[in-house]
């Protein structure tokens, strides 16, 4: 049976791009449908009636939603270029940090960039620094979080490796991920965006910055 892989996503969404990164890494051909989130399509509502959100992967007509769930599905379905380690303890570890990025880092990033007032933004930036330190320590001596090749955690960390910089630029917030403060993480981010499957999946930077600036404003411009 000819395989049909469809990704319903949004060009600026890190979650959506995670799915594309994994598919590209594994060399899977897919059709991409851009979703207008201000006017959700019948397809999206049909394939993700519970959350009505992107990304959704539709494989041979069957939908899978939630980016980290999709990444695991992709890894289990297409066994080349595995993105999760074989050892259960290492797998639990990768999943833990991916969850950490989504549940702890992202809210801190958004508050550091677009918190209500300067005090809130500074507090969030301090918090984010602590969180980045945990990730810095987790990298240890490795090239990528996944070891010699990128894995699920590297893909989940696209939030840190690329989106953080874009959001800081869009909002005018100070750059947090510097070589001085987080040398390993800084290096990792530079290597990460050079991996071809990742590079091909990044939104065009200028367009992305302009879009985020328009959406949320440049609240730190007074600096």
């Amino acid at each position, binding site marked *: 049976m000819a395989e049909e892989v469809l990704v319903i996503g949004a060009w600026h969404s890190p979650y959506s791009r995670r799915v594309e990164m994994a598919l590209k890494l594994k060399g899977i051909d897919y059709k991409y449908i851009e979703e207008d989130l201000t006017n959700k399509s019948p397809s999206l509502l049909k394939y993700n009636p*519970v959350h009505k959100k992107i990304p959704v992967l539709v*494989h041979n007509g*069957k939908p*899978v*939603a*939630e980016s980290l*769930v*999709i990444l*695991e*599905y992709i890894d*289990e*379905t297409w066994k080349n270029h595995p993105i999760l380690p074989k050892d*259960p*303890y290492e*797998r*639990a570890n990768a*999943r*833990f940090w991916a*969850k*950490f990025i989504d549940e702890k880092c992202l809210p801190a990033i958004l508050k550091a960039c677009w918190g209500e007032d300067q005090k809130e933004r500074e507090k969030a930036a301090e918090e984010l620094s602590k969180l980045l330190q*945990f990730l810095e320590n987790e990298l240890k001596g490795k090239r990528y979080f996944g070891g010699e090749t990128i894995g699920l955690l590297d893909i989940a960390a696209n939030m840190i490796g690329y989106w953080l910089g874009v959001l800081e630029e869009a909002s005018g917030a100070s750059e947090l991920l510097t070589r001085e403060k987080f040398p390993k993480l800084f290096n990792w981010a530079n290597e990460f965006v050079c991996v071809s499957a990742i590079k091909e999946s990044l939104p065009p930077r200028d367009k992305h910055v302009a879009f985020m600036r328009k959406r949320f404003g440049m609240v730190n411009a007074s600096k």
Partner: protein
Amino acid sequence: MAGEVVLLNFWPSTFGLRVRIALAEKGIKYEYKEEDLSNKSPLLLEMNPIIKQIPVLIHNGKPVCESLLIVQYIDEVWNDKSPLLPSDPCQRAQARFWADFVDKKVYVASRKVWRPKREEQEEGKKEFLETLKTMEGELGDKPYFGGETFGYVDVSFIPFYSWFHAYKVLDNINIEAECPKIDAWAKRCLQKETVAKNFPDKKKVYEFVAQTRKKYVSA
């Protein structure tokens, strides 16, 4: 595969209960350590320095944190009996999706029921019931979320039933009436020894919830 297994837990925790049930399903012997969350032990802080929360599973000295990740870990290590996740990738994805829904929607909504202001509480109750009705829709006419057998989503969700009695008495939320299929499913799960033996006493949970609620309301 065997080796030393330790669980750090707090007895009313719905998240800890997921792990207890998973361990029981696999017939794993373990050492149970009760944590006082107002005075966290050095062991807990050493084993979960990032989140500093229970449950933590310590297997041969190495910690695994976050209840759903622990349940998946248990399923992967002790893979010789009672599989919790299905083997088909599509069904596994569905199971992960629904367990994630329990965390992101059901649990979050259940916290909103605690709001001190009346109108916020009413809104919280409504939202909570909606999430339960969504779960009820997903269950359909199946005996378990896992289909014919008790599985990952059942393990993820059944602990919340331990708090339903408290919600009924304190908040007048009658889940038996509003979501009869969920109620029937829960009672079916409680017929399993692995669930029943680990379930906390509903009166004790009620007392705990009532006491903790006072702190939030008076704050």
